[in-house]
């Protein structure tokens, strides 16, 4: 197992390198100019040239990338061109905010998805199945942006139950896990949870329905096992796949939903990436993407480690 983990960790290096290289190139391929982050729109050519020199943007792109990479491997992600703040501080603050949101949304989505999916699979073809199918289709189809706005209009502006935006009364820096702060989490988390809810419901439903047709389940039934005992066996057999799908979903959520975070002014990675992309703030963009990439890889690794622990057959293959 240890050699497997080490091998996977080694794979992280080329993945991270490729991701940063591609994102660096995309910034330059896209129209626009990194200097837009700092120069006023009508800055004369002399000011623009002076700024290019000051920020090293007058150097060839491979040199710029090489320098960034050299600093990054030493743990220095540089400073944001637009704000001058440390990229590491900016990204960590955004990641921690997204972790709160994605954690709650992911947990709710996966938990409810498992329950709904299991019920639908167990009572395959019943009204519960049809209801779960409808809900899961809505979950994967409904546009996030629209749902967030509708929820805000209903529960915030009409009913006044939850705040319309923000990450707490004093901002995310003063976040506490109390009722006052968690009220701010309800609408964005609910909005964000519908996609994992839909996907997990569909996955679990299909797996459970399929599993119940398997011969070993017939054998268990023939041996007179109770429904609960049979369900435990089915759950154990479906868990590795569900875990893999849930890991991927959490990874996507960690990337932050640009639209959901914008609708709710939630200061997470999506919000940060949005700003960095529009301002062509290369250090901020690179730092955020690198950290998210590492998160994604780490999550997948964790899933790969957990899967054989649940199902030893996977370890043998």
């Amino acid at each position, binding site marked *: 197992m240890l050699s497997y983990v080490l091998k996977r960790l080694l794979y992280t290096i080329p993945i991270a390198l490729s991701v940063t290289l591609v994102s660096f190139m995309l910034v330059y391929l896209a129209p*626009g100019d990194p200097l837009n982050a700092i120069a*006023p729109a*009508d*800055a004369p050519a002399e000011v623009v040239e002076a700024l290019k020199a000051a920020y090293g943007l007058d150097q060839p792109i491979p040199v710029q990338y090489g320098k960034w990479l050299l600093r990054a491997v030493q743990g220095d992600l540089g400073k944001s061109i637009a704000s001058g703040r440390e990229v590491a501080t900016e990204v960590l*603050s955004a990641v921690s905010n997204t972790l709160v949101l994605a954690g709650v949304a992911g947990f709710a989505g996966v938990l409810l998805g498992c329950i709904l999916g299991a019920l639908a699979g167990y009572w395959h073809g019943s009204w519960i199945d049809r209801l779960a199918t409808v809900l899961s289709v809505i979950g994967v189809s409904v546009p996030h942006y629209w749902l967030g706005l509708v929820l805000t209009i209903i529960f915030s*502006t009409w009913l006044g139950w939850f705040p319309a935006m923000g990450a707490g009364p004093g901002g995310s820096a003063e976040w506490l896990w109390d009722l006052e702060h968690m009220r701010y989490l309800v609408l964005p988390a609910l909005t964000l949870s519908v996609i994992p809810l839909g996907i997990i419901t569909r996955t679990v439903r299909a797996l459970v329905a399929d599993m119940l047709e398997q011969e070993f389940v017939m054998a268990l039934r023939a041996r007179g096992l109770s429904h609960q005992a049979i369900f435990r066996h089915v759950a154990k057999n479906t868990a590795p796949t569900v875990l893999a799908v849930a890991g991927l979903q959490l990874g996507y959520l960690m990337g932050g939903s640009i639209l959901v975070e*914008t609708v709710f*002014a939630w200061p997470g990675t999506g*919000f940060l990436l949005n700003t960095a992309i529009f*301002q062509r703030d290369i250090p901020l963009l690179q730092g955020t993407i690198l950290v998210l990439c590492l998160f994604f890889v780490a999550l997948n690794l964790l899933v790969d480690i957990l899967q054989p622990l649940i199902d030893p057959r996977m370890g043998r293959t």
Partner: protein
Amino acid sequence: MHVLPKQLSRWLLSVPVALAMHSGVMAETVARYGISMADIPLTTGQPDRGAGAYQFTGHTLYDPLVSWESNIGTRPGKLMPGLASEWKVDAKDNKKWVFKLRKGAKFHDGSEFKADAVIWNLDKVLNDKSPQFDAKQSAQVRPRIPSIASYTKVDDYTVEITTKAIDALFPYQLPWFLISSPAQWEKLGRDWNKFATQPSGTGPFKLDKLVPRERAELVKNATYWDKTRMAQTDRIVLIPIPDALTRSNALLSGQVDLIETPPPDVVPQLVSAGFKLVKNVTPHVWPYHFSTQPGSPWVDIRVRKAANLAIDRDGIVKLLNGLAVPAKGQLDSSSPWFGKPTFKLGYDVAAAKALMKQAGYSKEKLLKAKVIIAQGGTGQMLSLPMNEYIQQSLAEVGIQLEFEVVELETLYLHWRSGVKAEMNAGKGISAINLGYVTSDPFYGITRFVDSRYVAPNGVNWGGYNNPKVDAALDKVRTSFSPKVQDALLATVHQTMVDEALMLWVVHDVNPHVLSPKVKGFVQAQHWFQDLTTLKM
């Protein structure tokens, strides 16, 4: 005689004291302001994010040498004494300006404002060899103070600034240049990033708290030097909410007390819910800036005039739910520099068709033109619907527009580069649609028509070159009487309109929506606003 026990008397005494303290705490007035930016603008002295950012972290925390009157909404503001109590040009050498500095003004850190601070701040943005030089602040303000050649301290309360050429309009550049505290910068280890979280200026507010991208809390500076401009609210919380619908929802749900730039569609709902819509003429125009280069379809003045007559501006104002006013020229007609143009912008399709016919075009022989536009963004209003409206209107008179749609940041690049640049000329682009700030003579007029500012030296994007206009602008620069300046600028603006140099569509009204709790908000006819008037 009964004597109260000592403990009891202390307790009785403490009650009113505690109540007074409590009421003092309770009495703190707080205004929560949902702003349209994605982040709090720079707090080190020179705000980034354009002219609209000065009202938030510029003129709140800092003061300029020469201020702009921003607490009046019934007429355009004017230059006012700031940290310089008076200024005048040297009678013998018109390039030299002498500024007498205000005595008794103090920075938030307690250090005194003197001539050394002015020189230190000029070095901060103009002298890249100085230790306090800050490339980011420099980038923001250098384009706005292009006339400064050198500067020197005369005594503790007098500085002299020399301009590159005689420039009578130089004082208009100074409201953009703000003074940070040298003592605070030294105290914080000469680190501008630390300064950003603990800034010190001489302004009517101090920064109490900064959470990047989430909030900035400004508190009243009780010892502010200008007693006529004391903050009426104890605390202003600036909350960046870039999405317009989210801003409206935050207002409707009571999370903020006022917002800027509501979405036009939501305004009726906000007003019917008891919120107050405040708008005013703002120095901002939404135009098509034409190329006047040979080969451009807009070279013929008849075509330019036809385009200006083919647009139903009232219809566009309706499209914006009233959040704009029809343009009569580059400037609003209330501007002292508007003049008396003979060409009247209006909606006259028959006249437009006649002009197009004279120019040799018709519905059968269409004039084709490519315009670069942004898909949206600050100052662009409802870019796509408005452009589509214009496209349909111009098609009626035989002008077929093709759009090159880009992000606003990309549009800026095309703008700075000028029409002759390969990125424009190579694609056949002959007009650009970009919202322009028109707050002072340079921003409103000079930069677009002076042949010395033809891109890439400036933003005379279309390459307009008129020796008469250049000569008039030279006269403006050497005339120190405001009346003469206004008259000359009016003639230049008249020429712009009479030559239909651009297709002017509407002026922004910089709308704000306020909760009924908000009193005293005055919307100046400028991008500079004075938040000291806010009262809760």
